[in-house]
């Protein structure tokens, strides 16, 4: 049986429904991300797990125990907040010791546990500093140690990295994941950053307008998005409109494209930039020709936007120091494999390129 169960949870504030029917089972030790744009209900869902909000309907249980009506201070959950929320009047050590003191642990044991936790996050030398003397990254590590010190059953991370600089964000997310694996603690991580979610999670819950659009591993979410929202929110996707012929082919503005499976009527096709190439190969049997609109040099990658069939298709190519990329206005042919074509829900009227 799963360790954390969320069943049929709904939440409305007044007439405003923020979470509409949410179900999720989390295994012990799993790292789950709630991914979605702001206002999608991910933070509200997290706060219901924490106990700061009470669901309008549904139940939440941890380790077989229904906690839906339990106040937060009884749930034995750890939480890290976006704005650190360290107690400014306490030293680093006292912050980490807070939960242990509340739990009534003997002083000697507290000292030991605090030292252990600070060693774990590599900040033992800063034990006597105060939060205002620490950098953002250090503060967030202390917040993590504080949350973990009382050995909570579940760890909740509410956008813990979004207030930090880009560099620290990357190193800290690796640190968090390593720590989580080491302690084997069940974790829910809320973020609007797809890169964070993809790189850290065992499974991702992509949320949109109060619903879980798709739940799956990062690989599934990225490569087999179930809805157009998931496809466009996670990663970059070029969208092309065409007419399905009913026999695994589609016609796009006169060109023919082979699909992974048959489709009929108006279809929207999605293509990842890395699936398209300017080089032909045995499996890249589809071809489309167009003019380069834009060349973005991103460092290790060069991203081209090619005008094809009335839309723009993004093509990633590796940077090659010996061979400069093609220029704007060049006519190029894009090659891609039928298996890489995503056939998305039908009928959206307008053509669009998914932005970043």
């Amino acid at each position, binding site marked *: 049986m799963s360790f954390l169960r969320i069943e049929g949870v709904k939440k409305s504030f007044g007439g405003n429904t923020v979470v509409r029917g949410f179900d999720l089972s989390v295994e012990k030790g799993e790292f789950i991300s709630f991914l979605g744009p702001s206002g999608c209900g991910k933070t509200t869902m997290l706060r219901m797990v924490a106990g*700061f909000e009470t669901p309008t309907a549904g139940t939440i249980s941890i380790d077989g125990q229904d906690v839906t009506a339990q106040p937060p*201070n009884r*749930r034995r959950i750890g939480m890290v907040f976006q704005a650190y929320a360290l107690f400014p009047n306490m030293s680093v050590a006292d912050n980490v010791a807070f939960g242990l003191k509340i739990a009534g642990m003997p002083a000697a044991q507290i000292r030991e546990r605090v030292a252990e936790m600070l060693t774990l996050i590599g900040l033992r030398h800063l034990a006597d500093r105060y939060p205002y003397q620490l950098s953002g990254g250090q503060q967030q590590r202390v917040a993590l140690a504080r949350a973990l010190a*009382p050995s909570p059953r579940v760890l909740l991370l509410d956008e813990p990295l979004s207030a930090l600089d880009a560099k620290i964000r990357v190193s800290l997310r690796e640190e968090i994941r390593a720590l989580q694996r080491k302690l084997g603690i069940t974790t829910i991580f809320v973020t609007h950053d797809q890169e964070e979610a993809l790189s850290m999670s065992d499974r991702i819950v992509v949320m949109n307008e109060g619903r879980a659009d798709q739940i799956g591993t990062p690989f599934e979410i990225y490569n087999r998005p179930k809805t157009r929202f998931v496809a466009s929110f996670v990663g970059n996707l070029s969208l092309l409109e065409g007419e399905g012929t009913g026999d695994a082919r589609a016609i796009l503005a006169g060109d023919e494209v082979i699909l992974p499976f048959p489709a009929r009527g108006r279809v929207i096709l999605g293509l990842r930039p890395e699936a398209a190439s300017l080089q032909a190969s045995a499996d890249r049997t589809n071809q489309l020709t167009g003019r380069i609109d834009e060349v973005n040099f991103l460092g290790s990658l060069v991203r081209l936007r090619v005008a094809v069939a009335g839309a723009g298709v993004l093509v990633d190519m590796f940077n090659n120091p010996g061979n400069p990329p093609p220029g704007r206005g060049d006519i190029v042919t894009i090659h891609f494999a039928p298996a890489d074509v995503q056939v998305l829900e039908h009928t959206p009227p307008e053509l669009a390129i998914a932005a970043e």
Partner: protein
Amino acid sequence: MSAEETLGPAPMRATSEGATRRLGLRLGGSWLGLVPFFAFALLFLFLPILYLATGAFQNAAGEFTLANFAELATPNLRAAYSLSVRLSLVSAALGTITGVLLGYAVILGGLPRWVRPVFMTFSGVASNFAGIPLAFAFIATLGRIGLLTMVLRDVFGFNLYGAGFNLFSFWGVALTYLYFQMPLMLLIVAPALDGLKTEWREAAEILGASRRQYWLRVALPILMPSILGCFLLLFANAFGTLATVYALTGSRFAVVPIVLYQQIQGNVLYNPNLGYALAVGMVVIMAVSNTIYLVLRTRAERWRT
């Protein structure tokens, strides 16, 4: 940060003679802009105080002496200081406690939104409603024939003055001071209460703390420097108050400002230099409490990042 420092351009130095002279001229000209302000402050703030301060260290013949300060220890002057300090402490303590409670209720108490602006605006008025009109209001309310005194006697059969209350006594004056101290406290402690982050409460809660534990271990320690600082400000506020107590009790209630007032009016003290010492003593007490207030406020602000 260090990268920025090393990469940034080296500060330019104005080495040419012309540039230096222009800089000097500009500084010299700019300085003139402050002359009116400092001239006024010198004439009407510093020199008068300096006059008193030097006089406090002189005897009638103009020689240096500490005798004036020694004489502050004579029974009646010591009594005046003692009464002033006690009254100010009590009224500041009352104001602090009630003001913080009111601040808690109005700002964090989960009351309807309109409550806060109403109390804040009223407090702006009430904290300025000191002096003689305030004394009149309390005489009309709690004086011997005050309305509340009468209502208590006629309707509830309770004789306030028979029970030992007297508006013109220590506690009566303290109760009157509360009318401007409590609102002042509300006004100056409000930013600190606003500065209590919701996340702190939530963080404490999820770490297992009860509401009580959150208040005792997190919120109150965080607020403490602000509260203590505000307490000292209220202390100074009460210590310098003259008009309210004068209008209430005439000159029978001999706090330091009253003694000084009489001294200026009619030279009650045989030695004018003693009066200077009395004044300097007041300024010292006010300065000390205000300085500690500033130190505590800086400390509280350091936490609020």
